[in-house]
């Protein structure tokens, strides 16, 4: 490529990047890296994932990565370099068939191989629903543990990206939250993504690993380069507060962090909790917090009816009933498919969340 062409490309990429940043509905603020996990390196979310998979394939000779387009590095560049490093029997393309990808992955896991399956967009995980819910989730139960597919991890990009519309923006956590036997995890940042992916890969239960795609490049942190895992089913209190508990996961955490800052200007002290694992979820941490604050707002991009916030709300009202000062508020996507140009009006943005905070405080 000519130098002129190259510089034109760089410029247009920069313009696109800054435009995207201006249009983003959140601000990503990196966490401080954990002090006990050794040296770190600047990595964005997708590079942290590549790093996790690299470590997995290095230490586990049975580990394989497969899905649509993973061989050349993946449409989101999450598997770049892995085929060259580990060979085409370990990192390979499959035909375009999600039910096949998951079914194949289950079989490989049952036969004892660590199977890391990629579904190109979470919106397309639905053809695999039968394999995930009727097979993967129930394999151990129905055989009394004679057979199980704990070595299966399904990774998939999810969530709003600014222009994804109906079929490139969904987060299907609610459907899988209802499928006991699975673990469902959604990391908010690169440090979280690497540790949680390694945890899911090594966990002896089939895991759905949801990766908010808008964070792939927007989120950059100092990520420990070594091998580490983070605990599943443990919610994290990111900010302590006394007036209201804000509960969310994935990209929405970054919205909530900003909401907490805005609320603080009005003298409202917010506690922010990242659920991290949707199934099995850490009700204990959440209920302890809401019992303290007496108020809560639960938020997610997915539509409100039948959404996961309902599960959290039902548990909170049962466990914290006498401590509640206000009804539990949910700020979610509306009950519509995910619109394209109307996305800003659909999303549970910081202004809707902030309004919900004021509602519960002034109840």
């Amino acid at each position, binding site marked *: 490529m000519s130098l002129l062409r190259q510089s034109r490309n760089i410029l247009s990429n920069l313009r696109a990047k800054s435009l995207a940043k201006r249009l983003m509905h959140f601000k990503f603020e990196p966490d401080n890296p954990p002090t006990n996990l050794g040296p770190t390196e600047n990595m964005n979310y997708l590079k942290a994932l590549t790093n996790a998979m690299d470590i997995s394939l290095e230490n586990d000779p049975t580990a394989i990565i497969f899905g649509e387009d993973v061989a050349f590095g993946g449409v989101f560049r999450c598997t770049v370099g892995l085929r060259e490093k580990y060979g085409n029997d370990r990192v390979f393309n499959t035909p375009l068939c999600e039910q096949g990808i998951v079914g194949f992955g289950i079989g490989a896991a049952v*036969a004892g191989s660590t199977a890391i399956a990629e579904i190109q967009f979470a919106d397309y995980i639905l053809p695999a629903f039968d394999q995930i819910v*009727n097979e993967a989730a129930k394999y151990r*139960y129905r055989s009394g543990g004679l057979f199980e597919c704990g070595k299966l991890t399904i990774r998939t990009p999810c969530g709003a990206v600014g222009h994804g519309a109906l079929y490139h923006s969904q987060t299907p956590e609610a459907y899988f939250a209802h499928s006991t036997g699975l673990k469902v995890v959604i990391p908010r940042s690169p440090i979280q993504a690497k540790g949680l992916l390694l945890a899911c890969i090594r966990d002896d239960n089939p895991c759905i690993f949801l990766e908010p795609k808008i964070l792939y490049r927007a989120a950059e942190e100092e990520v420990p380069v070594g091998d580490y895992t983070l605990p599943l089913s443990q919610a994290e209190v990111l900010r302590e507060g006394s007036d209201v508990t804000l509960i969310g996961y994935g990209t929405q955490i970054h919205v909530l962090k900003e909401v907490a800052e805005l609320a603080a200007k009005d003298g409202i002290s917010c506690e922010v909790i990242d659920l991290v694992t949707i199934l*099995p979820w850490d009700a204990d941490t959440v209920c302890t917090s809401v019992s303290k604050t007496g108020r809560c707002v639960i938020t997610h991009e997915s539509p409100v009816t039948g959404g996961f916030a309902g599960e959290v709300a039902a548990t909170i009202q049962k466990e914290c009933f006498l401590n509640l000062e206000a009804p539990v508020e949910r700020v979610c996507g509306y009950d519509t498919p995910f619109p394209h140009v109307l996305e800003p009006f659909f999303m549970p943005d910081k202004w809707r969340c902030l309004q919900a905070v004021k509602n519960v405080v002034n109840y």
Partner: protein
Amino acid sequence: MSMRHFIKFGKPYLHTRSLLRGKYGLQTCTHVAKSTGVQPTSDGNNFIGIPHNCVTKLEFLEPKMENTIPVYQVLDSDGKIIDETQDPKLSDEILLKMYKDMKMLNIMDGIMYSAQRQGRISFYMTNYGEEATHIGSAAALEMRDLVFAQYREAGVLMWRGFRLDQFMDQCYANINDPASGKQMPVHYGSKDLNFVTISSPLATQMPQAAGAAYALKRTNPGTCVICYFGEGAASEGDAHAAFNFAATLDAPCIFFCRNNGYAISTPAHEQYRGDGIASRGSGYGMLTIRVDGNDTLAVYNATRKARQIALEESRPVLIEAMTYRVGDHSTSDDSSTYRTTGELEYWTKTNNPVTRFERYITNQRNCWSAEEDEKLSKDCSKQVIEAFTAAEKRLKPSPSLVFTDVYDELPVNLKEQQKQMREHVSAHSQHYPLKRHEPL
């Protein structure tokens, strides 16, 4: 080479892939084209995937149902070997084990079917008519080969050594069932015998078999996978996914279709319009054969060869075994509502796999007799009745086991729910069948 040439010459699809590979040294494309009088317009186009020749004649491919894929057969209806070169020359020991397992399967099916009718077990599925598909194929495999089955393959388990008490304990859902009575009857599984636990959804096992075969190719070379399914299940999307994945990823998997004529009440001609399941094989680039599923030795030979090819060449093989489901679909079905007694009688009496095999071992191999046959029936009945009497007496599993094996360990929410269940049941024990179960 275009498909059209194959159909015109009625060449079996078996040769499609090898032709493309030029393996069996058949005629080249240009030579064949000249013989038909149709000249390709160029030397071929470079479409990514398969090379093509171009033609100027507008002609659609017609699936010619007069030239269906032939049925491989070794034994005729009298149990006589048709072509001596195809006799696998099995030992008397193997032949007798094959026959005894078929008879035991029949007798177990009869007694368990009655048990369901008497309300002793909740549900049952018989295997009548398909004994040769089970025993013939199972005998051709090694014990280390992994089996993914659908639900009508009990003979495979029997061949491998699943005991009567194990069959019964699963059907009776008692404390000896490794799955603690969690599944309906006939959903067997055995880790020791490399038989993956049955699940009710159809065809889901098929892409799993492809994945397992791929994994085993890397970690346990020399081990193959066999995947059983019916012609009805073959209509599911999972079947298509399985064939395509196994073929593109070079998985050493035998796909064994039991085409038994019916999917519950739906006859095969309402299940597909083309030439059965076998005709799909070459579409996926798979080696394919159709066999007489009621001919134990044909099934044996085909499976043995398929296994050899699958492992040596790292590729899937499709076997379509033509057979007939003599029994009802299950104890919830009454097949007299959708098929004639005449049809049923033909397959029960005239073209019966067990009878054909019995004729072979008695008349051809002279290692069996009518007297031994009668004694065998009596012995089998006695054993089955002893086993089911014992299974019936055993307790059902503890109610606390509702919560186990959902995950590898009980998570917080399930520990809590287990506690709630125990408290509730203890407080209202008169409403729960606790006497039949091990303690809470």
